């Protein structure tokens, strides 16, 4: 940890830059949701838009975790121990979405 003034100022700059990015992404997402949903839906391209949201959300998550939560500046192995468990979730998401889809096929009455 350094108390050097320059480093501190740099950090503040990085924080503000990250804030800017987060805001831009959010604005873009909302604009897309409000203006483009109908267009994409009509052309059966909603999946493109949805993938866009997911990628953008992951980008936002990356910014929050790496800069705000400071993980970028921690020992790399710490980051690894935190991120590896998240891959289990990835598998669970895929499996459960597949399941949800099959429930749709099986719904009765």
């Amino acid at each position: 940890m350094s108390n050097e003034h320059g480093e501190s100022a740099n950090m503040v700059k990085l924080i503000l830059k990250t804030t800017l990015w987060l805001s831009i992404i959010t604005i873009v997402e909302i604009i897309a949701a409000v203006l483009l949903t109908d267009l994409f839906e009509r052309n059966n391209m909603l999946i493109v838009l949805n993938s866009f949201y997911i990628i953008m959300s992951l980008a936002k998550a990356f910014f929050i975790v790496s800069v705000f939560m400071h993980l970028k500046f921690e020992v790399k192995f710490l980051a690894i121990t935190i991120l590896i468990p998240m891959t289990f979730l990835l598998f669970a998401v895929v499996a459960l979405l597949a399941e949800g889809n099959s429930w749709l096929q099986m719904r009765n009455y």
Partner: protein
Amino acid sequence: MTTSVLVILAIVMFALVIFQLAKTTEFVAILRGEDKTRLESDRINSRLMVVFLVAGMAALFWSVAYFKKHMILESASVHGEWIDSMFNVTLLFTGVAFVLTQIALFYFAWRYKHTKDRKALYYPENNKLEMWWTIIPAMVLTTLVVIGLYRWFQITGPEPKDSNVVEITGKQFSWMLRYPGKDGKLGENRFEYITEGNGVGIDFNDPRSRDDFMPSEMHLVVNRPVLLRIKARDVIHDVGIPHFRVKMDAVPGITTRFWFIPTITTEEMRKKTGNPDFTYEIACDQLCGTGHFGMKGTIVVESQEEYDKWTSTQKSFYESGIQGTAEEKKFAEISMQLKNAEAAKANTTHE
């Protein structure tokens, strides 16, 4: 009451006696010298290891032979044979592994008991050995997975085109069956139509449903594929038919399915087993409440002619149970309500 007290007293006394004996051995041990006692108990225990191994293996083989007639259930369906052969293959591999590892474990335990004049071998690692005993199980398991999945996809795959369809619905604590009737098609059913009289919610507005019949016993044609459409209306149940190797949960809200081909008629089975009362039984295999253990259904497997004769005697559920009764009025009312509700919904969404 008094006998129970006596039994408990006897047990307590017995425990105390054992305990006293154990304490005594401890004192004796101190008197005799601990090392000596330890060597002796080591010897006893190491011998018991071998005794356990031999006696255990003997008991295992004896009991398998003894229970063979009970535990090997004649498979009465096509895929049952597949499952049985898979079972045998798996048993072969696991059996070999079981016998070898148990023998090694107990033999080593006996062979390498503590002696003063011998030192244990400092042998922390052998990569080659470890590699082999990773690769061999992996290969065996791959084989089993391949066989297993091949069969799994066959069993769970689409049913043959000429399958009969039977709908089976679980409720606490019985099974309700529905056959498609003469037209060969099951009518629609809908949850909202369920009443005590119309147990599976048949939609009588659907013309296909008018000839559906609901027998109390399941009849199947031998060597003819049958598709079970499995439903539940209150909690989860499970259609388990051990002789056909059939098992599938009945889940409220969704329809599950299982198809199979019965290969042995009830008559033949009676001869084979020498049991004149033999019946195929449906059991509930998923805990569904306090009556779970009595949730039985019965199945008759018969020839096509017998089956046709049976179907011809069955009365349609609509005609025998609904038509002209209070149930029909109730059904009409619900129909009306549903229609109105749907219309109202359509209106609001249009807004």
